[in-house]
């Protein structure tokens, strides 16, 4: 069982990812935006972070940068559904450059979610 922090501003997607992970017996904390995610992260450092990239407030890319700065070798999965100004491929490439270990383009299946977690865990 791992402690997983899920950060996404989309309430349904956040809920569905949480349910999938809980069904797999993980302990899940969920944050509705980047600021809340960072607060939770600082309070109780998780084993894995799964974060959206485009969010209101502190964006996913900034969160990844900050978390990697705070904790070395942190398994981070970056999710993205694309953006208005750049493709999700670009967003995910940037996320990887900043330290995310696995990329998860939205929409994804449960199998793809767990594959990404496995990649992030190394």
């Amino acid at each position, binding site marked *: 069982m791992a402690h997983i922090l899920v950060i996404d501003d989309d309430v*349904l997607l956040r809920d*569905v990812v949480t349910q999938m992970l809980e*069904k797999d017996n993980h302990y899940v904390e969920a944050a509705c935006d980047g600021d809340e995610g960072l607060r939770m992260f600082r309070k109780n450092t998780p084993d894995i972070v799964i974060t959206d990239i*485009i969010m209101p407030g502190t964006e996913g890319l900034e969160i990844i940068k900050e978390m990697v700065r705070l904790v070395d070798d942190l398994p981070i999965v970056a999710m993205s*559904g694309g*953006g*208005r100004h750049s493709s999700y491929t670009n967003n995910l490439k940037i996320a990887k450059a900043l330290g995310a270990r696995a990329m998860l383009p*939205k*929409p994804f299946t449960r199998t793809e979610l767990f594959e990404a977690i496995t990649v992030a865990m190394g």
Partner: protein
Amino acid sequence: MDALKETTEKEYCKILQQVVFADDPDNREIHLADAFELGRNSVSQLMMPPDELVSIHHAAVLRLSEEHPELTLGEVAGLLTLPLIEISMSYGMSFREQVEQRYQDIVDRRLQQANKLEAVGTLAAGISHDFNNILGSIIGYAELIDDELPEGSSGKKNIKHLLTASMRARDLVARMLAFARQGENCGMVVVDAVSEIREALDLVNVTEKEFTISLQTGIAPASVMAKPGQVQQIVMNLCINAVDAMAQSGEIRVYVERATASQCGYDGAASGLCVMVSDRGHGMTPEMQERIFDPFFTTKEPGKGTGLGLSIVHSLVAELGGELTVESRTSGDNCGSDFRFILPLVSDEQQGTGCRRSCSRLAAAQCMGR
């Protein structure tokens, strides 16, 4: 008149063939423009009445469908609701005005098409984030419900259908995004512009023996990002334009050098390639220079040009992130035109894959300037 009619019919049939078998819509429109021009010449210059053109059109369609039994008569004619018929049968405007109107319609259609493509791209990029989130929830919840349902139940079967439909929607969004991005640097590689320019000049030398073409280059190789053949096509079209601007003979000078800092308008880019094609032809007035890159604008005699050569050059240079300018003089010893384009040079560090030479003589076949 019979001989004229026969010649026109043959020529028209040839153009029809090019229209029908054009490999892409752009080429079809170019050949269609040739058909218009032929019609315009025939009516306005050769005094051929419009109904003669209608019969030529019918005869050409018949001949073409006989030569190509795989196509029905309806398919051939259907591909070409050619203005010649419509024009001669409608009322209100003069024949010539209507032909001009059809030219404009082609330009408008192209613009509309470009706008449509841009709109699809904007829409796809705009909705993809939200749409992918929505689809993510649908797929995720469907999978969670699927876990709860007993094997073989109708509910389980229905959830499978829901998931299949969701995956189709996912593919559709991916395809729309791919479509929206298809023009972005697609197929661009590092090419040596100097090699492509040399090949273009070799080809022009072969076809235009009365003209002397000189090349002065202060840089070689010159690596730019382009699709193979694009630089060659730019230079060929400029040279053909130069040949047409001069009477029977003359010299075309092509200069290739590193652009000065002030010529490079790119953000922070330190280096650019400057290519100038210079002729000593009749030159262009400022009014002509204003319109010289407009599609279908031509100063050539009817039948000599489609008016697309320089607009193609303009759009190609723009596609490569460059700039095209012209300076022209209609009198004095220095009479003639200088077309200058600047392309961003690729630095050594940017060249991951090394230089690739331009592709053969393909651009010659694609050269659509005349």
